[in-house]
């Protein structure tokens, strides 16, 4: 966990006071909506179909049990008793009242949570690997650098009015769980041949209307130069990024239009002007940030305790363990992913009761810490393996033991037309139907790792472009239709999916996905060949033939 200092605490509380005054002036008519809109967006407040939506940042996906309880409190007191975890380590409340928002913000500020820059044309919540600090083989905890970036970008005066929103993601593991290649700036921490910590810097990734996989702009930037190099990128973007067309304003368009070489040259020229200035990070600064992260003191525990050995005879426990429990850097401990994808449930939603109960379980079994992943699941990052059977039973009692992590029903979906004013089609009912179709765990296990992503419009909040199977809602003559892509992925081999053919109506989507899955099962060479590998080997044609042969 990271402990905010007095400056941060003061900043957050001052922000609440400022917003309280802005809301008061808006409700009295002193501020018009045109004047107020940017102010509310900078505090994560959108206007959706039914109500205001309030987006709260969970920087680098790390939450304390105390903070999770406070989120539950906000859900219960100011909303309708639940929250929705998003694809960027935020939580959204869908029914918040503007008049009550300042009180909700104040309650969150008391535990160091805020909503600054979760919307608007500025730097958004800095995201990272939800297993940061505990993943085996990780070079260093990337949250230290995420926090440096968070402090640097928060209320940065030069970058508060960018051409468009701007998103960072950081990983320090070989396997990318932070989807860095679909971010405006993606950072992969590694050590060079001299053993120095630095970053491969990628730029210009993003989804939406015009999707791009990020390109490497510099293979190695020393850690001490991170901020100056990032500032150089953002200055070039701020200067040349388009402001005349919202659809062409993201940095990915600038990188594409200039070309990565020309863009890199512009950045290099800027960087040479500032790299040895105030932004150069000295060791003391980095160590100060590092020292504010606290880590559990792990016991020396056996890898295979008796409790786990006994529980292995229970097939239901074993099914859950196989799909939800992952290796930890400390012997005798595991990372436990908590699926927020129950059969028939909206992906990413958790009730206040579940959040409270999970906070208690985090205190009991995970040193009071919870993580939030971009897959819209949660994780307990420090669970002693001897406690896994008891944890499983406790999770089962609160409806959080669905054994489907990384399987076909572990679906990423945006809120879609049920909530969102931008959406063309519903996402959640499609996800719900798919979870019912693939509710049989034996079938899901047989299929293996398969990621389905659903977006209700081209803005791609459900990351459909990078789903192994991507589903995009469109509107045709007032009806909901869905385009299907396959072959996308968001990891270190990130790729955009390929459209398999004409869009299909709402009631046919689940049938189409079943056809694709059946085709895969027939086409794979061995049970170990994952869906994404079969698509890579054969291309989309066999799947297209299967889907459209009878349509």
């Amino acid at each position: 966990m990271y402990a905010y200092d007095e400056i941060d605490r003061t900043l957050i509380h001052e922000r609440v006071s400022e917003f309280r005054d802005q809301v008061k002036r808006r409700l009295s008519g002193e501020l018009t909506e045109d004047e107020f809109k940017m102010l509310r967006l900078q505090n994560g407040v959108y206007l959706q179909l039914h109500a205001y939506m309030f987006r709260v940042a969970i920087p680098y996906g790390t939450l304390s049990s105390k903070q999770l309880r406070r989120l539950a409190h906000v859900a219960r007191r100011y909303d309708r008793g639940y929250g929705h975890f998003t694809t960027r380590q935020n939580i959204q409340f869908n029914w918040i009242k503007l008049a009550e928002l300042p009180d909700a913000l104040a309650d969150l500020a008391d535990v160091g949570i805020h909503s600054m820059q979760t919307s608007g044309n500025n730097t958004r919540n800095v995201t990272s690997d939800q297993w940061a600090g505990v993943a085996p083989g990780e070079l260093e905890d990337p949250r230290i650098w995420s926090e440096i970036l968070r402090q640097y970008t928060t209320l940065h005066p030069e970058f508060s009015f960018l051409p468009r929103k701007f998103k960072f993601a950081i990983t320090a593991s070989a396997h990318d769980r932070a989807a860095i290649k679909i971010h405006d700036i993606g950072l992969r921490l590694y050590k060079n041949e001299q053993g120095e910590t630095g970053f491969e810097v990628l730029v210009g990734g993003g989804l939406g209307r015009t999707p791009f996989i990020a390109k490497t702009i510099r293979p190695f930037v020393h850690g001490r130069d991170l901020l100056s190099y990032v500032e150089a990128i953002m200055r070039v973007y701020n200067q040349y990024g388009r402001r005349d067309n919202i659809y062409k304003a993201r940095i990915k368009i600038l990188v594409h239009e200039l070309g990565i070489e020309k863009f890199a040259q512009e950045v290099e020229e800027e960087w040479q002007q500032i790299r040895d200035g105030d932004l150069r990070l000295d060791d003391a600064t980095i160590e100060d940030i590092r020292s504010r992260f606290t880590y559990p003191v792990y016991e020396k525990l056996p890898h295979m305790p008796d409790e786990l050995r006994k529980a292995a005879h229970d097939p239901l426990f074993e099914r859950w363990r196989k799909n939800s429990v992952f290796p930890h850097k400390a012997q005798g401990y595991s990372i436990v992913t908590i699926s927020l994808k129950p059969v028939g449930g909206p992906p990413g939603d958790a009730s206040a009761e579940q959040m409270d109960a999970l906070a208690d379980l985090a205190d009991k079994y995970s040193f009071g810490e919870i993580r939030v992943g971009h897959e819209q699941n949660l994780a307990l990052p420090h669970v002693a393996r001897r406690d896994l059977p008891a944890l499983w039973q406790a999770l089962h009692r609160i409806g959080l033991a669905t054994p489907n992590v990384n399987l076909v029903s572990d679906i990423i979906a945006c809120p879609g037309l049920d909530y969102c004013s931008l959406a063309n089609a519903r996402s959640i009912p499609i996800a719900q139907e798919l979870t019912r179709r693939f509710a049989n765990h034996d079938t899901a296990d047989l299929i293996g790792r398969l990621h389905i992503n659903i977006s209700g419009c081209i803005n791609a909040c459900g990351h459909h472009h990078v789903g192994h199977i991507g589903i995009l809602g469109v509107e045709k003559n007032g009806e909901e239709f869905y385009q299907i892509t396959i072959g996308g992925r968001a990891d270190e081999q990130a790729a955009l999916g390929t459209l398999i053919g004409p869009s299909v109506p709402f009631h046919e989507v689940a049938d189409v996905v079943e056809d694709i899955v059946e085709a895969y099962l027939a086409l794979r060479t061995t049970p170990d060949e994952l869906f994404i590998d079969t698509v890579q080997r054969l291309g989309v044609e066999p799947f297209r033939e299967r889907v459209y042969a009878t349509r």
Partner: protein
Amino acid sequence: MTSPLEQKIRITGPSVVTANRTWDGAVVYRTTGRDWSTDLADAAVVRAVPDARALLAESVADDVGAVGAYIAPVEIGDGGKPAPGNLREHIRATGVTIALAVQA
């Protein structure tokens, strides 16, 4: 952002003006009494562009009462009452089409 009053107005049938109430964001409809109602049945129904433009102008002018006013299609049922004219408006009028994590 272009004001709704500067946008070209096209209507193909009976229409209403809808928005979200400022203090809580609730879906509201402009009434014949120059006020807002959360009940679509209370909405003023217009059928011609000049009437729609006038209703929208009056609605937009009430910036404190509601935000984001726009013209939405409706269908007129047997009882003469307006009903939502498309899926989006149906969802706005009747709520999400899914069961919530916590039932109200």
